[in-house]
């Protein structure tokens, strides 16, 4: 007992020295990333899921922006509950951040393959479950540290084991801590809690309750142009932080504090006859902060006008370059200077503030799934998924940076000389906002969803087939709490409810050549309602709908071959997915019109085709080998329509066609290979090597510069350049790990230790995690380099060490 207490104290002490392999989030692209398990980043057969390709993508794809079939790797399904939201502002991944690796991962469904989880319309479904992870009573501790960003992570997991007529439960807690001084991506504090309780009842039924709660507060990184990155001398350059009173200050942050309560009832008459009812409620807040300014110099240190390339005089350019090299602190924001500006103004009016965007969440998601075996050949499944969501979005002032107030003005308008235009609240004009008070947009977004579905499954010794139909009804509504100066007549109060229908069909046939060889075909057709983001032009201001809002039509087929033998697992797939009526919306400053505009694109057709191969085998019983090859081609199929709408009144400035046909629709590499070798010395020790190589990776394109407006004003050579993809350099990485386990037997207890060491990107290859063309473009002189592409680079070579103790 003394020893256990000692171990616990020791591990708690080490909380400051552990690690999480974390991935940055870039707010401009609004991408979220799969949080990686620190010690399992190398795919191994030891922990292989049913899909080796998916493993390779999840564990190696981050650096290369390699995602699975053009889809995100998010967790999308929790205990039959669909975690996707039509309101767009919710990040379920943040609710699970840090704790999601403690869940039981049940399945990964590709291209809509039918699974035991019930019918799901999404092409890629990543299922997790709150099911208890082990039938045995145990407690485990893990502590890890990495050199990449100096994050510490401590995990504690207790599992009561499973016994009938007892309350069985599992508690997992994950604490992460990263100090800003030691990482260019800044600080992170996170506590994740997963509590699951189940009671098995005697009539083959089960009651369950889960609490999933992640409280996190972390800084965010930002992308930068290559010029600034080179001047900084580090690929980890992050322009979003600065110096304030001789300390590091991060204005760009993200917070999440929204517990999820899940209630589950399951009744099983047999394996194929059951009903599962699951309901979840989320109550809490998600927020993010950033620097805002008005009527003041751009404070961003990497603003294009501050970089040497902006200066035409070569002598002055060289002088500035040398100045930056001698004074690297100039490449970070000088908050002391911003504070001085605020302090020196009349009445200490703040021209610079840190603003916080808050979203209060009230979400209810649920599902009912019923399965009935009609005969030994037929199974009938039906169910319904339902959701209601209510979001309250508003801004608060997090930091006045030395000032005393900030005017409640909208900075993102075109100055029309009308004093009321820039008022965020014309019923309370020129209001001075103090610290922590609300300002700016203030509104509710609400949605309801109802999705019944039916499925018939047929099984025999040669063929397994599934046919499913789904329907859907979705309602969206905005309810404004402010009457803003731009749209006084229709910014306040509830809008009319927008109802949209959905329908989808999916079929799957699996033909069994033998017990080892299978052929599977999937076809689907979907009609998905538009999200709030696609429906409204700007729901911050009012409920005017976008000129191109429409439900998205998707269709596709998938043909896969499987070979399963004791020594080999081979999977080969080809697929073809099309989607139509997609829309994109961007807000940016248009140099030619010298004003802010909304760029809205509609009727976008995209195609996602590809071929995949994965081979898993063992050599000499000691070496386990996994090879994955992936070719995917994600392109625009057409030249879609677009409109530029004035920021002040949504009136059309111009519009025609965008020449996007055949351009890359994603920044995913076209061709990716991964080879994973694991040498298993014995049952307790192993080492592994992993090689990844990505080719033909296009940069994210800016759509609006490929317009008629530009076509008529530049020469044919430059225009052809614009119509061609810009590819990033082909790049590869080598990763390695070593793992050793040992056990100590004590009376009535078994101690299992595991120590693992891993190294990523051993060759220190510079790999852009994100690369994109800026939306701002030189529409006056058409200098393609004026607003250069922005990048976020992988941190390069780094290692991690992890120790785990499990007591049974």
């Amino acid at each position, binding site marked *: 007992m003394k020893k256990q207490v000692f171990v616990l104290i020791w591990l708690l002490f080490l909380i400051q020295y552990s690690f999480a392999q974390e991935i940055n989030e870039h707010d401009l692209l609004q991408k979220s990333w799969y949080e990686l398990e620190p010690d399992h980043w190398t795919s191994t057969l030891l922990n292989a899921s049913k899909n080796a390709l998916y493993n390779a993508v999840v564990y190696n794809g981050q650096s290369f922006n390699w995602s699975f079939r053009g889809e995100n790797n998010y967790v999308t399904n929790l205990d039959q509950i669909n975690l996707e939201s039509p309101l767009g502002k919710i990040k379920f991944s943040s609710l699970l951040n840090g704790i999601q690796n403690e869940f039981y991962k049940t399945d990964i469904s590709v291209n809509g393959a039918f699974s035991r989880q019930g019918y799901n319309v999404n092409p890629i479904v990543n299922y997790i479950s709150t099911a208890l992870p082990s039938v045995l009573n145990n407690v485990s501790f893990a502590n890890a540290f990495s050199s990449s960003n100096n994050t510490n992570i401590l995990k504690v997991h207790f599992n009561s084991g499973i016994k009938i007529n007892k309350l069985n439960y599992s508690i997992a807690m994950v604490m992460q801590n990263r100090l800003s001084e030691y990482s260019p991506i800044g600080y992170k504090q996170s506590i994740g809690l997963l509590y699951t309780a189940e009671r098995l009842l005697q009539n083959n039924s089960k009651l369950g309750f889960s609490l999933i709660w992640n409280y996190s507060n972390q800084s965010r990184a930002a992308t930068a142009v290559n010029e600034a990155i080179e001047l900084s001398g580090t690929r980890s350059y992050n322009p979003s932080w600065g110096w304030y009173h001789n300390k590091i200050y991060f204005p760009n942050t993200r917070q999440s504090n929204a517990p999820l309560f899940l209630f589950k009832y399951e009744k099983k008459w047999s394996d194929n006859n059951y009903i599962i009812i699951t309901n979840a409620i989320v109550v809490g807040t998600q927020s993010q902060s950033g620097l805002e300014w008005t009527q003041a110099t751009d404070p961003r240190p990497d603003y294009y006008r501050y970089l040497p390339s902006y200066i035409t005089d070569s002598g002055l350019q060289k002088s*500035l370059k040398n100045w930056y090299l001698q004074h690297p*602190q100039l490449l970070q924001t000088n908050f002391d200077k911003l504070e001085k500006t605020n302090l020196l103004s009349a009445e200490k009016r703040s021209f610079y503030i840190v603003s916080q965007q808050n979203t209060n969440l009230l979400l209810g998601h649920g599902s009912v799934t019923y399965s009935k075996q009609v005969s030994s050949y037929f199974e009938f499944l039906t169910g319904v998924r339902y959701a209601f969501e209510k979001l309250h979005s508003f801004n608060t002032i997090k930091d006045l940076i030395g000032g005393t107030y900030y005017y409640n003005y909208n900075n993102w308008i075109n100055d029309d000389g009308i004093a009321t235009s820039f008022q965020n609240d014309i019923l309370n004009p020129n209001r001075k906002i103090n610290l922590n008070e609300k300002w700016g947009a203030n509104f509710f977004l609400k949605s309801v969803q109802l999705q019944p579905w039916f499925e018939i499954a047929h099984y025999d010794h040669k063929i397994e087939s599934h046919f499913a139909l789904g329907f859907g009804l979705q309602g969206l509504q905005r309810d404004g709490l402010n009457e803003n100066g731009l749209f006084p007549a229709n910014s306040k109060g509830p809008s009319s409810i927008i109802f949209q229908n959905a329908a989808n069909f999916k079929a799957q046939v699996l033909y069994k050549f033998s017990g080892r060889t299978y052929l599977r075909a999937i076809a689907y057709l979907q009609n998905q309602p538009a999200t709030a983001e696609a429906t409204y032009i700007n729901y911050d201001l009012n409920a005017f709908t976008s000129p191109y809002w429409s439900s998205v039509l998707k269709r596709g087929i998938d043909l896969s071959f499987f070979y399963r033998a004791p020594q080999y697992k081979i999977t080969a797939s080809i697929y073809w997915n099309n989607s139509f009526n997609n829309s994109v919306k961007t807000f940016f400053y248009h140099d030619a019109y010298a004003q802010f505009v909304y760029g809205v694109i509609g009727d976008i057709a995209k195609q996602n085709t590809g071929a995949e191969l994965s081979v898993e085998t063992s050599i000499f019983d000691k070496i386990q080998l996994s090879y994955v090859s992936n070719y995917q081609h994600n392109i625009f199929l057409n030249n879609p329509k677009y409109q530029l709408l004035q920021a002040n009144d949504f009136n059309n400035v111009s519009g025609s066609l965008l020449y996007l046909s055949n351009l890359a629709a994603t920044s995913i590499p076209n061709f990716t290979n991964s080879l994973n070798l694991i040498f298993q010395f014995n049952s307790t020790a192993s080492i592994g090597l992993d090689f990844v190589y990505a080719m033909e990776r296009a940069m994210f394109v800016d759509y609006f510069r490929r317009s008629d407006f530009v076509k008529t004003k530049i020469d044919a050579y430059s225009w052809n350049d614009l119509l061609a993809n810009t590819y990033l350099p082909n790049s590869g990485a080598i990763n390695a790990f070593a793992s050793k386990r040992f056990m100590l037997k004590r009376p009535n207890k078994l*101690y299992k230790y595991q120590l693992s060491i891993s190294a990523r990107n051993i060759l220190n290859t510079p790999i852009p995690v994100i690369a994109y063309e800026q939306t701002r473009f030189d529409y006056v002189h058409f200098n393609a380099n004026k607003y250069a592409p922005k990048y976020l680079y992988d941190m390069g070579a780094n290692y991690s060490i992890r120790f785990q103790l499990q007591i049974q």
Partner: protein
Amino acid sequence: MKMNSFFSASIFLFVACMLLNTACAKQMASAASETPFSDSITSIKSFRKLHNMGMVELIARTFIIEGTVVANDEHDNIYKSIYIQDKTGGIVVQLDGLSLYQTFPIGALVRIYTQNLFLSDYRRMVQLVASVDTSSGSLLTTGIPAPLFSKFIQIISDNNAITPMQVSYKNLGDSLQGRLIQLSDVEFSAADTAFTYADKKNKIGASKSLKFCSGGTIYLRTSGYADFAGLKPPKGNGVVIGIYSVFNSEKQILLRDTSDILLTGKRCTGAAWLQNLPQTGPKIPN
């Protein structure tokens, strides 16, 4: 034995984690101190003498000038430049930045390290610039880039008092360029008071005749971007404060703000002008 193994393993792992963490804790670069500056000050009057009108001079030596900011871009009548003056003279300094008034507010005492900058003139108005380009056939100048402000300019103190120099028409001359001056007994020509300072709608600048009661005219130049460009000049007589400027042979004055205009007396044009001169001087804002 098992006990010993347990503790040995524990201590080994603890020490390993501590060492790894210590080895990796790379402190990021700390904020560097200000650039060291030397202290040999040249008067602005002497400094201006380095310039030959119509020519461009590279400041190769370490000339340092010091002056108080007397005008900036706060009201958008001045663009990408500030005006500084000392007891001997004034000069316009081109800066490639916006909202300069927040960094260089009126009353700020600044020291400028002029080495590698250029002296030039625009229509005979002497200016300090960062680069010159004559490749297009005409002289194009660039202000000091914003990131280099801290290299060339040091802010010594804020809120220094400024007293405009009272000047009569006959004393207006190039030695006053860039200085804050006060003109008394002046009024706008009657025709000019019917129109705004400039064309704010089309962003076109304009000059208005400002007449001395004692005879003589100076032109009040206003940018179309000035926030007061759409206002009409007052019709009265009195005092005008501004920056003395020239446009070739034309004598001009630049307003910083309309509070620099104190034309509340009766006009001097006509028989009664002598009885309506202001009796006391205006209050001068810092």
